[in-house]
């Protein structure tokens, strides 16, 4: 009998779908609200079958009213449900900021009561949907007390982080990545796959350079690391939860390698990459052997055509080149 856990090849969207099904099965207080999540099975098809299974009360199609949509989460969470709010594209969160930041994130601060709200938002330029359907605004939410923020880079974490968020008593924003939806990953076959919030994942150990990557950049960072394996020993850390950050794991790695590259799909200024570089400079000053490097898209809007999208977003090559500069 092997101690290895069996895995199953699973698409990213399936991981999310499984998490939703399992959590709604487990706890009837869990509800899902969003645009086209019910009758239509979701804009990405990932909620297909849920309304048939759990009914139109618990899988509720909403009109195109984003502020009230987030309010459905805050208000129903306050009266005993454990709502999941789907934000079709992360960009649309701009219509919900008051309800999420001024209301939901401050609910516990004002009342002392928990607010078990999960928000799921699809980020990034994976489709070819242009400048209003592709933004990565995750940094905005990392500066908000009372809110947890996680971001998945594979089907296992997409599933396990979401399941943890649904059970968590705090408002939690789970950022999913458009660009990974149809990619396949090995997901452990276990009864109840939970990935804890607040714990980074060392995806690959190494001794020369630490690459901290988020979301869609994680597979690319791993690919870059593998490509360089003969020359450079690269450690790849996926924070998974980006607020609060697992600074212990990140800084331990940086202290060990003395070199840091941060790769993300978001723009650079005031981003998670800036935060990680800053933390490294503050806390691993003595250990750092080279300047940290941020690998991000240029400071431009997201275009529509896919070739332009890909020309703008860092590739494994870009990350590899950045890794090399830290050793130059």
């Amino acid at each position: 009998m092997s101690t290895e856990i069996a895995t199953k090849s699973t698409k990213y969207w399936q991981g999310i779908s499984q998490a939703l099904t399992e959590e709604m099965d487990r706890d009837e207080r869990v509800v899902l609200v969003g645009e086209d999540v019910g009758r239509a099975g979701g804009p990405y098809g990932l909620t297909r079958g849920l309304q048939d299974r759990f009914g139109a009360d618990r899988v509720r199609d909403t009109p195109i009213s984003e502020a009230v949509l987030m309010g459905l989460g805050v208000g129903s969470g306050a009266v005993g449900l454990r709502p999941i709010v789907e934000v079709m594209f992360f960009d649309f969160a701009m219509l919900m900021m008051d309800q999420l930041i001024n209301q939901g994130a401050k609910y516990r601060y004002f009342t002392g009561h928990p607010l078990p709200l999960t928000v799921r938002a699809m980020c990034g330029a994976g489709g070819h949907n242009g400048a209003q359907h592709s933004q990565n605004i995750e940094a905005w939410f990392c500066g908000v007390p009372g809110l947890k923020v996680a971001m998945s880079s594979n089907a296992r974490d997409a599933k396990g982080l979401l399941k943890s968020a649904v059970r968590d008593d705090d408002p939690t924003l789970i950022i999913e990545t458009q660009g990974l939806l149809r990619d396949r990953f090995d997901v452990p076959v276990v009864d109840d796959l939970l990935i804890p919030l607040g714990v980074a994942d060392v995806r690959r150990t190494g001794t020369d350079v630490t690459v901290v990557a988020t979301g869609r950049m994680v597979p690319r960072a791993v690919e870059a690391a593998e490509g360089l394996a003969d020359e450079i020993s690269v450690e790849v850390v996926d924070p998974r939860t980006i607020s609060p950050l697992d600074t212990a794991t990140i800084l331990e790695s940086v202290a060990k390698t003395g070199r840091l590259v941060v790769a993300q799909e978001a723009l650079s200024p005031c981003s998670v990459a800036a935060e990680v570089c800053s933390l490294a400079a503050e806390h691993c000053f003595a250990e750092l052997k080279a300047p940290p490097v941020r690998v991000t898209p240029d400071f431009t809007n997201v275009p529509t055509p896919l070739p332009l999208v890909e020309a703008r977003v860092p590739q494994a090559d870009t990350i590899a080149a950045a890794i090399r500069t830290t050793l130059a």
Partner: protein
Amino acid sequence: MVTSIDDQLDALGASTDPALGRYATMQLCRRFEETVHDQFHSEQGVPGPLHLAIGQEAVAVGACHDLRTTDVITSTHRGHHHCIAKGARTDRMMAELLGRRPGYSHGRGGSMHIAIPEIGLLGTNGIVGGGIPIATGAAYGLQVQKRDDVVICFFGEGAAAEGVLAEALNVASLWKLPIVFLCENNQYVELAAQDLHVAGEIWRRGTGYAVPGVHVDGNDVDAVTAAVGEAVERARTGGGPTIIEALTFRWFGHYAGDKAAFRTDEEVELGRAGDPIVRARKALDPVVVAEVDRVVEDEIASALRFALSSPVSGPDVLSLNHLASV
């Protein structure tokens, strides 16, 4: 043994005579706010903004009179009367407003951030219209749980200009949510008269969404009780939402200290002449009223004593209650 204010008022007949009960609650709201207003003008002041609802008591008290503890309300930046009408303790409220530790939010939130889920109060709010989506969400939550509780969503005529009201009317109508949208039209919006803010009539804002609209004299507590009661009953029994506009009058400026230069003395005099408490008192036995007033006076005096004798909140409260777990 100290008897609670509820017991004392019951002993005076407040539970058997609803009109007396409503009078007592209105008086409690009034005296609470007058007292905190005095504190504002005292040397030590009040450590935060105060938006007084003096003059508007009939709306809150009439609307909440028949609610259960498990029914839910959302309030506004001007919400002391909503809180008290829904059953908040005046001592802990006073402590909150005066920045004391036993306040409902450890004395760090003040007047705009009182929220007491255990009595169905999902919060006063510093964001105009901020309670409207929350109220809608609460109504959805009650519906999913098949509870026969309802939500009353209070908002001002200024707040009616926020888009969330329309979003909420549409959703509530589509889903037949158990909710009453209650516009407390006090005729002023921040530092101006409402003519800068309100086109048309707010009680007719439901027309395009098939939500019935009602308008009522917001200084007549019995009329408010009746109108809201009917809407609450409809909501409770699956009949869906109602929008109600209650016309009342804001006695003071936008915030305590505001000289309200935007209106004339005559206007104020005329407005105050509609005092809902004077009006309610007329129909009651003066002897009983005097007794009630004394009970209320004691309650408020003791709330103030409680607050003033409680420790001022220190920096240790700053970090409390951000996350349930890390």
